[in-house]
């Protein structure tokens, strides 16, 4: 808690990111108090521009864009969260094993990881999504994205650890008789943790981006409100040509705000957690 407050005070990017994420959280919670169910149409007058009554206007289907957006943010974050949990779980585990154990383990795992990296993900994803077209759920999408997003992170963890193993301080630690576990937890972990946090955020960014992309092609769970499906239906009902730009601007703006918020928080965290940059900053300021 003290750390969070300290970060809030001293890291501008963390402060901004935290405020943005707080707003996103408020949006997410508001979705539980929506006056209309998310899928119901013709509950409000159609094609109203933004006004005091309809904060973000209404669309041509008679839905309130603001309340739709609250559901969209909630569902998009659910998809991304699931994907990150699964993807990073597999990725970190395999990366650590193949980096530290080396030898046969490393060769076998690297072969597997490399063959998953070369398989183009987006065509594969589109192919699978096209196969289950119409039956895709939010949960299914999250799991699918997670299962496709572990190979590249795992390779990066591996190369990070290989490079750490080559560094002088590791050799020094080994020669001075430090136990392996201690080297890993005390010397290497401070390098890995910022990496992990940044990687989790990049997982979120990947999942949110992929959800948007799939939805644009009409392949996500098109019956639920997500950021991507809102853009898809906005385009579908010609929001741009009929001069109702607010229908598109809301989800586009929301997606930008969500990802930027996540990213700024991770930037703040990384600079805080990485002892070397902290030192560097102290020297600069002191």
């Amino acid at each position, binding site marked *: 808690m003290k750390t969070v407050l300290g970060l809030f005070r001293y890291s501008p990017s963390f402060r901004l990111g935290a405020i943005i994420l707080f707003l996103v959280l408020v949006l997410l919670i508001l979705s539980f108090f929506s006056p209309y169910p998310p899928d119901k149409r013709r509950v409000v007058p159609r094609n109203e521009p933004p006004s005091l009554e309809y904060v973000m206007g209404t669309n041509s289907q008679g839905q309130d864009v603001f309340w739709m957006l609250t559901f969209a943010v909630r569902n998009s974050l659910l998809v991304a969260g699931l994907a990150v949990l699964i993807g990073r779980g597999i990725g970190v585990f395999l990366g650590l094993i193949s980096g530290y154990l080396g030898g046969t383990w490393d060769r076998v795992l690297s072969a597997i990881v490399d063959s998953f990296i070369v398989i183009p993900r987006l*065509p594969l994803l589109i192919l699978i999504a096209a196969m289950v077209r119409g039956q895709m759920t939010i949960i299914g999408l999250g799991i699918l994205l997670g299962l496709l997003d572990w190979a590249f992170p795992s390779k990066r963890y591996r190369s990070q650890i290989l490079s750490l193993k080559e560094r002088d301080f590791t050799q020094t630690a080994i020669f001075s008789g430090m136990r392996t576990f201690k080297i890993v937890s005390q010397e290497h972990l401070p390098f890995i943790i910022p990496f992990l946090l940044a990687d989790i955020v990049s997982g979120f960014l990947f999942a949110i981006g992929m959800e*948007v*992309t799939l939805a644009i092609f009409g392949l996500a769970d098109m019956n639920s409100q997500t950021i991507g499906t809102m853009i898809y239906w906005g385009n579908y009902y010609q929001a741009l040509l009929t001069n109702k730009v607010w229908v598109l601007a809301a989800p586009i703006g929301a997606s930008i705000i969500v990802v930027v918020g996540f990213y700024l928080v991770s930037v703040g965290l990384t600079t805080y957690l990485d002892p070397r940059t902290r030192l560097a900053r102290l020297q600069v300021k002191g």
Partner: protein
Amino acid sequence: MKLLRTFILPRIVQYLIVIFVGITLTFLIPRLSPINPVDNALGRLTAFQTMSPEATVALRESLMDLYGLNGNLLQQYFSFWKRVVAFDLGPSFTVFPTPVTKLIGSSIGWTIGLLSLSIVIAWILGLILGTLAGFFPNSWWARTMENSLIVVYPIPYYIVAFVLLMLLTYYLPIFPLVGGSKGAPGFTWSYLSSLVYYGFLPALSLIIGGVAFRFIISKALTSTERSSDYVRFAEMAALPKHKILFSYLIRNTLLPQVTDLGLSLGLIFEGALITEAVYGYPGIGSLLLSAINSADYNVIMGITLLSIFGIATASLLVDLSYPLIDPRVRYS
């Protein structure tokens, strides 16, 4: 010699395994699709004329044979390998009977031209800007650049592309909405300038995202290296700043960067999909998208195979170049 045995040979074996696994998966996954391309094609053929049931069955048989869908999975698998080795990917189902290799051949130039150029430009720009910003972290230009690129970087690529499209073709109609060029191909000024004109917006969208990503990575790498002992010693020894930067620091940050460049060049085929779909650019991505929508097995397979070869080869070349760039790998 030792390097060859312990590093290069295992890597090449791995390359072959990777390609084998990749090709096998590419074979299997489309065959799990519920859409039967033969019935699709039959539906198209019989839509305009009535056929007797016998003729339909006979046509179906010959189509199955033509598409390599005869026999059980194992037989299909072997004939698939035979065709891959012979570089014969069969005819396209939807644009029958144009061979897939010809379809891919006519669209791949667009993709490679657009993507490789934008990836390399973005890589170089991002690397230079990021390294400079990491080396001089307290200057005003480094801060401005970082603050603006940090906001751009996490935005999903589709959103960047779509907003650019909205702004620069709809609200401010400067650039064309769809297409890759105008006029007859040739070394004429009007054709070449139309290439640039039509390619500018897609390339811009790719470069914006690419530079932001590369900038952040190389700034992080540089500021890590900057706090290393050797840089501090070099600074104490009063070596000129440009010498520290170019002779020592960049060489240490370059290894992961070269890896990434190789891999992202390999990812050309994947990256093309959204760009070409958004901008209606006539490349391999548009081809793949229409193939997926119409369950055109052979085209999907052809493009996936190509990208597997591309990515695997890129990653092999990158790994083989490690010893050249990083002596620590050479002597370990």
